[in-house]
């Protein structure tokens, strides 16, 4: 039923909406000489990342008996490039199952965050300077960002248990709330550079505020959606604490939770752990690269003055 209404409303939108063609911008148009210097600097900067990454990769391939404390030994290549560590790490973490859970949690969280937070950011951002209550809401939500998680943890454990959502759903609800302040800040900040003329034009054409938002503003915030998606996904993907305390005892593991298996009080299997971290890194890296393209290519604003 709900779906029908959305379809109907979409049809009603007049064709005359000010459709804005995507247009490429480069934040700066610099001279070629400057670009070369910058390229060199950026590549040099990469070395600070390559070196630790190199160590991570070789440790992921080594056996515990190859671990030493001397520099030369630690930087040496592994004796054999066997994928055993990766296979074993996948077994220990119940990889596909944990990965599925991580995907589910991250995916659903990101989608809800984009839909809900962009809307909230828009509502607040557009009316902030008109009515105090919107401004107050903005500061209220943003201040929620500064609550240390440790103080919320126990009450949230109790609350989610009482509501019967001490499960994956509860974790998603908590994520949606945790990331709300940051995302609203980002959306509201981005809106400052989207001219109100866009909506006003749509309004004149008879579109409702609801339609205007989804048809005009929402697509216009595409780079910010991609940014929010990356930041939210990154934090969700790596988060240990929330699923640990909320979902304990449900047999559902996320990847970071399963990775705790490698660490016990008196011993850590770094080789398996590093292999597992490298495996967990890939999906989010790919997601990031896809989103990056959206951030850069999705720019449509600035065309209307």
């Amino acid at each position: 039923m709900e779906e029908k209404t959305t379809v109907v409303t979409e049809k009603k939108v007049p064709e005359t909406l000010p459709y804005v063609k995507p247009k490429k911008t480069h934040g700066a148009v610099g001279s070629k000489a400057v670009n070369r210097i910058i390229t060199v600097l950026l590549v040099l900067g990469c070395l600070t990342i390559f070196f630790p990454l190199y160590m991570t990769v070789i440790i992921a391939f080594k056996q515990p008996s190859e671990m030493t404390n001397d520099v030369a030994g630690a930087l040496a290549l592994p004796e054999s490039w066997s994928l055993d560590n990766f296979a074993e790490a996948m077994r220990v973490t119940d990889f596909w199952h944990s990965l599925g859970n991580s995907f589910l949690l991250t995916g659903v969280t990101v989608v809800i965050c984009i839909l809900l937070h962009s809307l909230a950011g828009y509502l607040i951002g557009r009316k902030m300077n008109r009515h105090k209550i919107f401004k107050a809401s903005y500061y209220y939500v943003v201040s929620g960002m500064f609550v240390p998680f440790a103080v919320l943890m126990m009450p949230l454990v109790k609350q989610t248990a009482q509501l019967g959502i001490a499960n994956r759903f509860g974790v998603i609800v908590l994520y949606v709330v945790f990331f709300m302040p940051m995302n609203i800040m980002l959306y509201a900040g981005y809106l400052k550079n989207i001219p109100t003329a866009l909506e006003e034009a749509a309004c004149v054409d008879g579109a409702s505020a609801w339609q205007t938002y989804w048809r005009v503003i929402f697509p216009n915030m595409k780079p910010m959606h991609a940014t929010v998606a990356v930041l939210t996904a990154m934090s969700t993907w790596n988060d240990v604490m929330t699923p640990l305390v909320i979902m304990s005892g449900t047999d559902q593991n996320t990847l970071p939770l399963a990775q705790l298996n490698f660490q016990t009080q008196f011993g850590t299997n770094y080789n398996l752990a590093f292999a597992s971290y490298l495996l967990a890194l890939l999906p989010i890296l790919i997601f990031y690269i896809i989103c990056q393209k959206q951030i850069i290519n999705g720019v449509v604003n600035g065309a209307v003055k």
Partner: protein
Amino acid sequence: MEKTKKKAKNSWSKNDKIFLGILIPILVLFFCFNTLPLIRGFYYGLTNFRGYGDYDFVGLRNFQDLFSDVRVGKSYMFTFKYAIVMTIVVNLISLILALGLNRSIRGKNVLRGIYFVPNILGGLVVGYIFSFIFTYILPTIGEMTGIGFLQNSMLASTKTAWIAIVIVGAWQGIAMNTIIYISGLQTVPEEVYEACMLDGASGWKKFSKITFPLIMPFVTINLVLCMKNALMVFDQIMSLTNGGPAQSTESISYLIYNNGMDGGQFGFQSANAFVFFIVIVIISFLQMKFLGGKEEQL
């Protein structure tokens, strides 16, 4: 644009009411899972609750203790020192990175991908690799080159351990701020540059007069976010120093978590967390007020 807004101030248009109507359920959700538990946390701050079992109401004792506790005082000093240095370092580097990565350069997407990696490497990996670098590699380099201050592990001295944490924190944190700056740079229309190219402005002048003021909202966001993340530093400390050496790198979050959750000081640390929350809110609002005044709109 500004004028139309002012004209309609105080009067509630139909549109305004609709906006508020949609906003309220979202705020209610936020209240339930953020403010409500915070209020419960505050209540625990008034008790000697251990996190389980029975507890007594102790009034404001925890809050009084807080102001006489040397360890808490030291952790505030450390946290602020760390946060200020981090905020400056991270924002400077990530702004430069963002400007660089936003240009038309070769292999841009690969570079962007690489700069993103530190943020998603887990704490265990970062802790192990950087401990190794600080404990073995840097001292070896120090001995080979004869640079004195490198010869001792940075993590072993109370004077340098915090710098090691700043380095790792910045290494991991820069990606996030860079992403936000890059998306901020997308809001700067090309026309603005074209216009100023005609005026003959270039390089630094262009940046300081045009780009920077236009991305000011993102500078504000980044400063606030970075400051907040730095003030809540926890992961890097757990994986590098565990608060040592000689308790010189105990951050407030470290105390709240270790003593409140793992230890039996849940009530006291709830009080600590609540006070800390108020402190960060004040700092961030001052930041936003100050920076907000400098923002320019198109």
